[in-house]
């Protein structure tokens, strides 16, 4: 419904990522490159998944168990890819550290590593929002709107933007948790990220029930806030740890 609504839906899904981008990522060119490569990696994952599932599509309407399989397989594939992404990042970190040694600059700080992980997660979130929400948005710029039967209280575009916002948050911060978990070998962090991703994916299946989105979307936001809290707690602990480590040596 008009250009204003269209821009509103787009900003709803991508507003926080835009402010993160402007305030943190755009200041360091390397983070912009990380964001672009991360988006590319997740786009490739979506293409591979769609290639695998293409023979079985279109799925029958109103039957929900094939979608369970779809979500399960996609989440497993993406989590495996996340681990590979982390392996690649470790190689890059070694290269960056040796480069810093050569030009006699300090090695990567903890905040640098956290920022790179954040940029990678933001790339994942932006890829999700762009392909699942923004690419279906152009009709919203016209004069009319669209409602889905199963969620008839709000326009389809609004619901998909709200869900996309939750997923952007989940993806951005679970990448930070995952990188720190893999780096420190912390089993809790390593397991919690796939669990969060899977539960978020399964919660969207609740939308299959009639008016299910009334329950599904708030629960999804619960998962997103849990991710945020866990990530914040973990980062705070790491920063305190590193400050305690480097503090006494200055005296």
């Amino acid at each position: 419904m008009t250009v204003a609504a269209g821009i509103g839906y787009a900003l709803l899904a991508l507003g926080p990522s835009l402010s993160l981008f402007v305030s943190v990522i755009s200041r360091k060119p390397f983070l912009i490159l990380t964001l672009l490569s991360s988006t590319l990696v997740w786009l490739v994952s979506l293409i591979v998944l769609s290639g695998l599932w293409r023979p079985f599509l279109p799925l029958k309407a109103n039957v929900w168990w094939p979608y369970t399989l779809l979500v399960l397989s996609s989440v497993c594939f993406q989590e495996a890819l996340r681990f590979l992404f982390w392996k690649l990042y470790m190689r890059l970190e070694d290269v960056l550290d040796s480069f810093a040694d050569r030009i006699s600059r300090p090695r990567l700080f903890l905040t640098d590593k956290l920022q790179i992980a954040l940029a990678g997660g933001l790339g994942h979130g932006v890829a999700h929002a762009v392909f699942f929400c923004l690419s279906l948005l152009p009709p919203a710029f016209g004069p009319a709107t669209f409602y889905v039967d199963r969620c008839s209280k709000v326009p389809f575009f609004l619901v998909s933007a709200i869900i996309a916002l939750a997923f952007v948050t989940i993806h951005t911060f679970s990448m930070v948790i995952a990188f720190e978990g893999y780096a420190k070998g912390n089993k809790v962090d390593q397991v919690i990220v796939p669990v969060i991703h899977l539960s978020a994916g399964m919660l969207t299946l609740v939308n299959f029930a009639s008016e299910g989105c009334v329950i599904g979307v708030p629960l999804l936001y619960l998962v997103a806030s849990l991710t945020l809290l866990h990530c914040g707690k973990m980062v705070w602990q790491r920063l305190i740890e590193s400050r305690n480590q480097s503090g006494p040596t200055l005296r």
Partner: protein
Amino acid sequence: MDRNQQRPRSSILDSLGEELIGILTPVSICMFTVVLLVCLLNSDPSSSSFSSIATAAYSETDSDSPWDKLLGAFLNSLVFVAAITVATFLLVLLFYLRCVTFLKLYMGFSALVVLANLGGEISILLIDRFRFPIDSLTFSILLFNFSVVGVFAVFMSRFSILITQGYLVVIGVLVAYFFTMLPEWTTWVLLVALALYDLAAVLLPVGPLRLLVEMAISRDEDIPALVYEARPVIRDDSRLVQRRVWREQRSNVNDDDVENNVVRAEEEEEQRSEEISVPLIDSSSSSSRPETFLEGIGLGASGAIKLGLGDFIFYSVLVGRAAMYDLMTVYACYLAIIAGLGVTLMLLSVYQKALPALPVSIMLGVVFYFLARLFLEVFVVQCSSNLVMF
């Protein structure tokens, strides 16, 4: 102890990769503007009677069979690539005969034609679309001013770099928009044909672009061409060797379009005072240091990256044509082209010789377009229309 207070030490992450971003930003702006124009002025492609040398052999109509369309598109591209080859050899001949003034004048003339003619047409389409109230006298004065300033910006090297960069991007946008009005099959086959031509013209020993670059190197001159130059980065570390990566491009509009793409890397260790836009850092260290991976991918050295205008134009044509189908293909093609550009710059630093800029990006872009159109769209629409996401 005051000296042991914590000073915020700058990390390497602060400035790494600045040159790449300096070239990615204008490419992205050009692509975004072309997509915006295509979406705003979405004229029905089959009804436009755009005729140029690229449709000389065959003009596509909706009623032809796919095989006819493919054959026709193939013939069109053949004619176009042949025309470009002839024009490039002409350029090589003129450069060999040292007619540099003539080439510069021709460059300025083509910039004037693009800005005045194509720019005027697009402005009229936009005014028509938005019902903007303006009279013809004001419009012609504004257009005249705009074109003349553009010609000066392209011609003179002492112009403000921001205005020059802006005008080069505008020229790229205008030419790219007109190329998107070609028929669909012709566009795709033409893009692939140009990528192959670029590969041949730069890497084969008899290729015109390779001859041009070798002549320019041997005479130590710049080829007069429309080239976009990113703002150079000045490092305070004097041990870094200045590296210059540029692509040569001569853009010729109307129906005799000639696009030449060449990538070249040069290490320079002495001052060049006439190049006002590239302040060089005097390097005192030996140039036989072992190259690390980071310097190899161009992130370590500082210097201005130059990219030819033909690359801008054909990347934007690809993305503009993807925009005529759906926005999902636009995002996929944009990411593919950026990835291709990064790969090309990496290969350039590894091989250190003239490399074509089009092939990797165009091939990746075309592959991603068809993958997105055939596979991704069905999958994503299935999932999101049922509000199932992951």
